[in-house]
Structures are given as C-alpha cells and as structure tokens.
C-alpha cells in the first residue's frame, strides 16, 4: 500500500480532511429556512419536520467491497456532499472526499437523491457520479507484462511506473435516512460503484482499471 508510506500523500490527505471539517462546521452554523409538513420522528418520538428542505449536508464514509481476488478488497471512502432539496423528496448536491481504490484520490461528484417518503424515516434512491482526481504524485503500479533476462532463463514482473490520471465514478444505490431531530439524521446506504481509473506510462503505454464494487456506507446528514 504505497500511499500509507508516502508522507507527501498523507500530508495532502490530512490538509484536505481539515478543510472539509472547517467547511462542514461553517455551513452547519448557517440559518436556514424550514418548510414542509411536521411529523413525529419514529426514532425519538419528537415532533419534527417531515424531511429536509433547502440546504443539506451528507457526510458519509464506508468501504468499497469487492471480490477477495482483487488487489484491494475493501478500500475506504469518505465523501461530504452539500446541496439543496429541489423538491421535498428530490435533492441535488456536490460532493468531495477522499478514497483509496488504488492510491489516493479526491472524488468530485454530483449527487442526486430521491426520498421515497417525505417523512423523517425514509428509504431513498441515489446516484452520484463524477471524476476522481489523483492525490499521489506517483501511482506506481505493477504492470502485467513480463520481462525476461536478455541472456538468462529468468522471467520477472516488470515494474511499470505508471502515473495516475484520475478517472470516472458512477455510483447508483439506495439507503435509509432516519432523522433524529429537526436538523440532524443518520444515513445508511448500499450502492454499486463503477470506477474507471486511467494511468499513463512512458511511450504509448496506458492502463485502465475498472473497479466494480459494492459500497456500504454510514453517514450523518444535517442542515
């Protein structure tokens, strides 16, 4: 796991997470308009608005789980999304975060969600997609080609110093949002992640990594 041993990458990730925390706490302090039908929270019993409206933030983290044959079975994902409820049940937001599918990446995604019920407890359907920017300076990767000694008998893996170029993300899913107060709730979600990452090496050599993963995430939401 190269990125764990890469001080430069770790520094970048730390700065990035600090920036996210600042952004999230600043937005939480904003005064927002509350509209919508009041209802009773099934988790707390407290009377509260049905769902969110206007501004919201969802910050979730979890794992992108794949087959045990994969080089990284369950890399970590963290995304914080800020957005607006366009209707009582439909929201759109912009998310940024950090993920480690193979090296360190910063995903920038557009997040669309449809809440099946306009209540404090509601299943939802979601889809987010966007682009993952590489955070590591060097995303070396063992290429699949084999090299042979020029006058020997031995073959060995050829280490190809690929440079990460980033790539696309598409993540449909579903989940449950449960509000535990007027401004706060928790979210559990399951999704399917397709991610295509591009790498370049010298000459015309390139590598494309397609990740098919099951995402399991837990997060918080507030407005």
């Amino acid at each position, binding site marked *: 796991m190269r990125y764990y041993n890469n001080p430069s990458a770790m520094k970048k990730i730390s700065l990035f997470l600090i920036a996210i925390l600042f952004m999230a706490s600043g937005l939480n302090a904003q005064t927002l308009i509350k509209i919508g039908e009041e209802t009773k929270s099934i988790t707390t019993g407290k009377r509260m608005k049905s769902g969110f409206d206007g501004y919201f933030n969802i910050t979730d983290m979890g794992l992108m789980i794949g*087959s045990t*044959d994969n080089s990284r079975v369950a890399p970590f994902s963290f995304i914080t999304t800020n957005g607006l409820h366009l209707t009582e049940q439909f929201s759109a937001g912009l998310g940024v975060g950090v993920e480690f599918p193979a090296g360190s990446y910063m995903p920038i995604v557009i997040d669309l969600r449809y809440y099946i019920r306009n209540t404090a407890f509601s299943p939802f359907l979601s889809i987010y997609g966007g682009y993952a920017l590489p955070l590591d300076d060097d995303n070396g990767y063992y290429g*699949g080609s084999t090299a*042979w000694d*020029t006058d020997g*008998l*031995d073959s060995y893996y050829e280490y190809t110093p690929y440079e990460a170029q980033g790539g696309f993300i598409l993540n449909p899913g579903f989940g449950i949002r449960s509000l535990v107060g007027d401004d706060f709730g928790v979210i559990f979600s399951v999704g399917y992640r397709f991610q295509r990452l591009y790498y370049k090496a010298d000459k015309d050599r*390139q590598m*494309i990594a*397609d990740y098919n993963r099951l995402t399991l995430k837990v997060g918080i939401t507030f407005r």
Partner: protein
Amino acid sequence: MKKYIIYPTILVIALISSCEDRVTEIFTGNSPIYMSYEDLRQSIKQVEARDLDDPGKLYFKDNYIFIVEEMQGLHIIDNAEPRNPVNISFIEIPGIADLAVKGNILYTDSYIDLVALDISDLSNIHELSRVENILPYTIPRFNEQYPVAMVDEDKGVVAEWEIKKVKQKIENSYYPVYRGGWNVMAEDSGGKVSGGGGVSANGIGVGGSMARFGISENTLFAIDNTTLHIFSISDGENPEFRNDFSVGWGIETLFILGKNMFLGSQNGMRIYDISVPNSPMYISDFWHATGCDPVVVQDDLAYITLRGGNTCGNEVNQLIVVSIKEIAEPEELKAYPMEGPYGLGIDGSTLFICDGDAGLKVFDVTDPLAITDHQLAIFPDIFGYDVIPVKDVLLMIGDDGLYQYDYSDVTDIKLLSKIEVRN
C-alpha cells in the same frame, strides 16, 4: 417494510457476484503468434541446407557437427575434412535449444516436448518418438525495445512475435522460460568420438560447456533453471520420462564426468552423484560470486568461468580453478581475472576460453596455480561463445560463424576453416 429488506438483499447479492476488478493494459509491444500443439507435433522435417543465421549450441559426433539454429532447427555439417566442412542439411525443429546424441539417435527439445530423431541415415532424418509436454514452456527471443504481451499457453507455443498494439487484462499467472542467448539446454561430456562416415550406432557425442542436455549411459538429463528432467533411453528410440528432480535455482549448465554431475548455477557449482540416475544424490556445493558460469571438469580439477554484468549479477569476470579431489569439499585453488568469459573447453593440459571481447584465449594448465602465466595463444578478433576441443581440432561457435582450429601444435594454433553466419 419487508420489501425494503428482500429487494435490496437480492440486489446486494447480484452486486457482490460482479465485484471483480478488471485492469487492462494497452501498449505497443511484442504480441505472440502461436503455433498450435497439433501443428508443433507435425512440424519436424528435413530440408535443404541453409546458412547459419542465429547459431546456438554446438554438438559433435562422428565427424559431424550439429549446430542449433535458435528455436528454428538444426544444421548438420559434414566435418570429415575440417579444412573443408560441408553444410549438408537442415532439420526444422521448432523450439529447439539443445541436443544430445547417443548412437544414431539424436535427442532434442521442441518447445515443451522431448523428441528422438533417427540420424542413422543423414539423408532421411525422421522423428522416432516424443515425450510430450515434459519440458518448460519456452518463448522465442523478442524485441527488447518493447514490452511483451501475456502468453496464453492454451493456444499453443509462441512461434514468433509481431510488434503491434496490445490490449490485455492483467492477471497473475505462471510465466514461461525464455530460451534466449546461449544459456540453454544441452549435452554430455563422455567424449567417445568414433571416426568414419555417417553417424555410428555407438558412442555419445560431445557438447560444449554451455550444455543443458547430458547423457550418462542409458539416462538422458535435461535441466532448466530449477529442475533436472530425467529420461531413460534404455530403449533409445522411445525415451521414457523417469523423474523431475529439483536442483536449486539459477542452474545454467550441466557437465557429466563419470558418476558425477556438475551443475553450474549463477552463484555456484553443485555436484551430484548420479550412480542411481533416477535419483541423483547431492554431494556438495562450491559457492562463488553471482555470475553466469559454465563449468568443465577434468580429472580432479573443475574450471569455472564467471561472467558478470547485464543479468549475470556482479561485475566479476574470472576463471576459477577448483580442486574436487575431495568431492564432498571442493576447494578453490586460484581465481584469475578475465574480461567477460563465456564457454570454455579443455583437452589434456590445454584450456580454451571464449573471453568475450578479449577474444579466444588458449592456456597451458599444467600448473593450475599459474595458468595466466602460460597463455599459449590469443585471438583478440574472435568473439566466441562456446568451444569443443576434440582430436586436435577446436570447434568454436562465435557471433559470426563456426571456426575450426588445428591445435595439434599448441604453440602454433592454425585456423582451418570458417562457416560464416549469414549477414
């Protein structure tokens, strides 16, 4: 509520089943052109003589010289008159790297198969039998300027490469052995050379010091870099696989003397007792610096050349003389600096060394502690890979052809003839 559990569960199971990553590489590289196994086993045939192009191993028997054309076939040279050798025929043997001859049966490799050929009539050489799928999967040389695409062994053997755009899925798999350069299979050192015309039904031929095939009585040994493959040739026409025997790592050459087998590896010489040929018994090791190292043995002295650089390890270039008087405890007597030695050969007290760019060197080794003080001749313009000294005639294969020298007078070694490599 129930539907919120059942439907997602079904979806999750479906997702997990398709959660395999897929990593694809795209590059311009060496792409394999396959020959099917079926075609491979129908491919051996005798054709008109052709010029040497990429000569490899050298073998001598009964006034005939056999020269391997790397991965292509075998040249047959009538050497009844060393001053006037005649290139008489060529046998197409895809995947050939080495050979050994006992009587009038020639054993060779054809990619993953061991093949027995009848050479009693040199105008009608034909396949007698083969042991299929018994040797390591091998690939031909490739253009080193480009990466190499994955090989699918199920499609057959790699007959050649073409440079093209390659798109391949990356996966871990077993990789084949590269049969490159000169470090490949070969011969025996029995040295029983009979005279007369044609290949006789008796005796074992003579190979060079880079050999990876060897014959001892009724057993044929073939090594790859880790394994000794053992075949019974009691019924010469039908060699039978007997055993695979692990002999360590980085094994490069094989030399048999009496009941002992000497394996040259990248970091030493390993000695086995082959009294029970199907089950060699380890005797001892002699360790040296990492390098490419053919070995020849005469009486109680082993001569090892070490070549460094490139893939051979250290930059050590030496001739090492090792006493094997106590075969369980080989002892270095002396090491002499060399330029970049390849093969070597010994006949009596005369040692021949192909010393890379320094040329062919000839030494009197009567005093093993003062070999370089007794250099008999040097041919600086000759870049040789391997030599076979036999009956006062030195056969030497170099990058530009087959040379033959008369060394009956070691103080006046004379060039007898040369067969040029096609330019």
